[in-house]
C-alpha cells in the first residue's frame, strides 16, 4: 500500500480553503489548485475535469470540488472529511453571526444600516444574472427560456423546482428523440 494522505491533513487543507473563500465558489478554484498541486495530490491536467464534473452536478461548486477531490485522495472517507472541512469554518462563522445578530437586529443603528443594504442586495443578484445571460445565452431560444423562467417564477409564482423538472424532462425527451432520428437517418 502506498503512502496514504492523512484524513486530518485533508480536513485541514479544505478547512483552510473554506475559511478563506470570500465571494463564492469560483474564488476557490485557484486556492484549491495551489493547495493540492503543491502537495502533489493532483496533477494540473486533472483540475479541469474536477471543475467540469463539479459544475455538472447540482449543488455548490466548492462543495462538489471537495467531495470529488477528497474521494480521489481517500475514497468515501476522504470525501466526507473534505466536505466537512470546507463547510465547517463558514458554518461556525455564520452561526455565530446569526446568534449575535438576532439580538441586535432591532437596534436603531442596525435598522438604519440595513435600510441602506437591502435595496443593494437586489442589484447584486441582478448583476451576476445579467453577466451569466450575456456570457451563456447565445441563441434566441436560450433567451426565451430565461425569460420564461423569470416570468413563471417571479410573476406567475411557479416553484423553480417544477420549472426545472419540466424543462429537464422536455430537454431529455427532445434530445433523445433527435438522437434516435439521427441514427435512423444514418442507418
Amino acid at each position, binding site marked *: 500500500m502506498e503512502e496514504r494522505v492523512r484524513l486530518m491533513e485533508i480536513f485541514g487543507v479544505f478547512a483552510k480553503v473554506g475559511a478563506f473563500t470570500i465571494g463564492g465558489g469560483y474564488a476557490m478554484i485557484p486556492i484549491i489548485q495551489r493547495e493540492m498541486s503543491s502537495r502533489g495530490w493532483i496533477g494540473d491536467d486533472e483540475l479541469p475535469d474536477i471543475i467540469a464534473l463539479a459544475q455538472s452536478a447540482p449543488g455548490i461548486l466548492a462543495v462538489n470540488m471537495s467531495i470529488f477531490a477528497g474521494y480521489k485522495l481517500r475514497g468515501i472517507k476522504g470525501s466526507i472529511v473534505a466536505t466537512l472541512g470546507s463547510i465547517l469554518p463558514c458554518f461556525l462563522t455564520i452561526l455565530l453571526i446569526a446568534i449575535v445578530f438576532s439580538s441586535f437586529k432591532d437596534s436603531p443603528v442596525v435598522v438604519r444600516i440595513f435600510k441602506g443594504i437591502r435595496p443593494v442586495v437586489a442589484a447584486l443578484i441582478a448583476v451576476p444574472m445579467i453577466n451569466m445571460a450575456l456570457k451563456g445565452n447565445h441563441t434566441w431560444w436560450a433567451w426565451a427560456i430565461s425569460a420564461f423562467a423569470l416570468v413563471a417564477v417571479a410573476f406567475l409564482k411557479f416553484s423553480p423546482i417544477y420549472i*426545472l423538472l419540466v424543462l429537464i424532462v422536455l430537454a431529455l425527451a427532445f434530445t433523445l428523440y433527435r438522437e434516435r432520428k439521427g441514427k435512423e437517418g444514418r442507418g
Partner: protein
Amino acid sequence: MIALLLKLFWTFFVIGLFTFGGGYAMLSLIQAQVVVEHAWLTESTFADIVAISQMTPGPIGINCATYVGYDVMTTAGAGHLMGIVGSLTATLAITLPSFFIVLTLVRFYTRVKGSRVFEGVMSVIRPAVVGLIGAAAVILCVSVDWNGLVPSFSIVRDNFPDWKSWCLFAAAFVASFKFKVNPILIIVLAGVLGLLLY
C-alpha cells in the same frame, strides 16, 4: 418543532438537488421555497441574510442555508439551541444530494462527459437558471397578487421604502455591472450610506 425540522430538512434537500449553476441559483431556490412557498421568513429578512452571507467567508449558498436554518427555527419561537439544530439540518440537507450525485458521477463521468443527451439537457438548464436568478432579484423588488386573472403589482416596501433606496439600487447596479466593484465593498458602503441617509 420536530415537524418543522423535518420540513426544513426536506426543503433544503430538494434545494440541494435542484441547484444547477452555483450559489446565486441556490439563493433563488432558497428564496422561492423559504419566503414564497412556506413564508417562513419575509423578503426583507431574506435580503439581510443574503447581504450577510455575501460578506462572510465561504460559499454564499451554504452560508445562506446555515443562516436561514437558524432563523426559521428561532422565528418559529424556538430558542438558540433549536436554532443551531436548524442550521445544522439545513446545511447537511443542502449538501447531501451533491454528495451522492458527485460520488455517482465520479464513476460514470467519462461516459457522461461530452454525451449529446447530457449536453442537450444542460443547454436548457443553463438559461433557465439565469431566469431563476433574475426572478430572485425581481421578487426582492416587486410583489404580485393575483385576483383571479388580474395581477396587481406592488413594490416590496420593506426593501424599498422610498426614492433613496431606488437611488442606492441604481448606484449599486452601475458600480457592480459597469465598474466591477467588489460586492462586499458595495454592501459596506451601502450600510454606511444607510446610516447617513436614514
